[in-house]
């Protein structure tokens, strides 16, 4: 069952994080809904978090990796809060949160 011992080493974590990253990117790129993009971003951040934790255990066996993830989580929370506030404001402005609408800064 290489799948099992597979999960003891770092590959498991890296695989999950790469998948998460891909899905995150995918959702960010394809979502029309602003909140969808936000979800994508959260996924990407978590993928990074997993990587750090995995490396903190498998590589340096030191707390630093986890510290980074801790900070990632904190900042992600702040970011989500502000993002949602913006989305709400945008929604109040445009009555829709379709990402394509938010193109005032076009050429």
């Amino acid at each position, binding site marked *: 069952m290489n799948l099992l011992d597979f999960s003891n080493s770092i590959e498991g974590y890296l695989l999950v994080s790469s998948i998460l990253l891909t899905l995150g990117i995918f959702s*960010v*790129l*394809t*979502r029309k809904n602003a909140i969808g993009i936000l979800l994508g971003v959260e996924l990407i951040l978590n993928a990074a978090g997993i990587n750090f934790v995995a490396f903190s255990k498998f590589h340096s066996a030191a707390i630093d990796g986890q510290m980074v993830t801790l900070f990632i989580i904190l900042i992600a929370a702040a970011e989500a809060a502000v993002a949602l506030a913006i989305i709400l404001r945008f929604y109040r402005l445009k009555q829709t949160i379709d*990402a394509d609408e*938010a*193109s005032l*800064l*076009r*050429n």
Partner: protein
Amino acid sequence: MAQSCLWIVALPLTAFVIQALVGKRLPRQGDWVSVLAILGSFALATPIFLKLLATGAVHETLQFNWMVMPGVDAVSNSPILNKAVTLTVGVLVNNLTAIMLFMVTLCASLIHIFSTGYMHGESRYHLFFAYISLFSAGMLGLVISDNLLTLFMCWEVMGLCSYLLIGFYYQKLSANNASLKAFMTTRVGDVMFFLGICGLYYVFGTSNLSQIYEGIKTGVGSDVTLLGIPALAFIGFMLMMGTIGKSAQFPLQVWLPDAMEGPTPVSALIHAATMVAAGVFLLVRTYPVLEAAKVVLPVIATVGALTAFLAACIALVQVDIKKVLAYSTISQLGFMVLGMGVGSFAPGFMHVITHACFKACLFLASGSVIHSVHTQDMREMGGLRSKMPITFLTMFIATLAIAGVPGFSGFVSKDRILGDALAYGMTHPSQMWIPVLGFITAGLTAFYMFRLIFMTFFGHARDEHKHHHAHESPITMTFPLMVLAALSFAIVFAGPTGIHSVDANLLPIHWFDHALDHVKTEMGVQGLHASEEVEHHAHSLAMIVSLVVAGLGIFLSALTYLKKVISAAAFEKALKPVHTLLWNKYYFDDLYIKVVIQKLFLPLTVLMAKFDDKVVDHIFVDGWAKVAMVLKSVIAKFDDVVVDKLAVDGSGTVVSAGGWVLRQFQTGKVQQYLILTFIVFGMLLFYMTR
């Protein structure tokens, strides 16, 4: 003695400086300063003269370096160009100087005294005396200078003074023109004179007279040619031209009559006694050079004769009293130059002295006449004999002198000149016309002089008003007249030996000739080298002829003007063309002014100025500017079209096009930006992990 000479010159010079600077503020406007100065000079000059009379000869020189220019020190007249040049100046006192000094200072002082009266009340009174003092200084400087350079300098200073004095009444336009004409004509002469000096330098390496005399004696420069003609001839001619300019000989005589615009004392001092004599004095000083240049003397003689005759003719028709005297001066000068030309060195020089006295007297007398009747036109005068007895008497004596009546100074000098001329004519038959002309002129002189006397003093007053006002001049004016009249007597020239110095033919010339012979030997002058008996024969003949001619002149003049037997007017009508010719002074004036100046010289200057402005300036200089302009526009066009349009704007459009393309990427959609980033991320990742 030379030291005193310096003082003689310095005194009037200081008077000039004082007058010019503070004259206005001095009491009596400083005329006494000038008079005292000239009297001082006179006082210094008399001992020199007395020494001459006593010892018969006086000689002293004083020299000092004026300009020293280092260079290759070579023999003074060696052809090396960059040889050292030192110009020395100094004082030469010999018999000539002594006599001239005495005469000049005497006349000048008398004229100074006269002009205190005459010029009384004039506006620029102090300046008048300043100029006269400067003039005296100049004349005296000329007389004493031992080299031609300083002689030339004083010569020109006198020219300046004559310019200033003639133009004294500068409000009058005629006075200005006259002064300018005087200065310019004399200037022509001066330029020639200077060239002569340059020639002398070239030949003798110096302008010092005594060195020149030695040089002539040793025959220096006889072989040198200047501008193709023998050097000494060239120098001689140049000096002659100098004299012609200064002494108003033909053809440069136009300025003297006009010089009468100046106040009468000026005419007396400058245009009778001294300045004009300077020209002749130059000839006297440089006589050895003239003699060495064989060719020059005959020319001088002819010029002298011609001038004398022509001037006399013009004098016949003149109505202005001063003009008559002016022309008489010209003709007398002609006589002097004639004398020099024919070789009568001593009589020529003597005539200078005698002429100075009586001509000064004549002028001053006419001055006092003008002063009282306030007009110069003889036609408005007449019958002044009773009104102005002293003036009449002194003028009459001077007229007798000038007419050549024996017993008077004029006869003494003029007769001897005519005698020598006759002798010269006999030895050079081709030149015979010169003495003949001389005698005729003598006659004419007598005629017009007495015409003048009769018209002014005799007959009835033509202008009652003026006649009424006429009054005798004050003592300051009459005293000089009396002194000068006294000098017109022949006996004066007998010198200290008194009566017994009178030679065979009643000519009291013994001491004079003796003095001049001394100078001749000193300078190496041969003088007239006619044989003894020819000379004796000529002189006796000359005396007779001159007496006849003088008497004839006086008689005819009396007939026409005193007794009105011959009507002058009829004569004029008969010889109308001659009269107009004479009246217009042979059109010399017109020739010079109207033709040479107005027609030739001024248009040339205007042409030259135009040429300069148009051709040289516009074409040569601005032309370049135009060329540049053309070039500029061409280059500008090229620059504009090629460089600007293609290079610059072209790249501009390329850039903007590129900009447009890139702008399409900026859709504003966040997601599309992210796609781009991730594509790049992917590529990067691919690259990193290959």
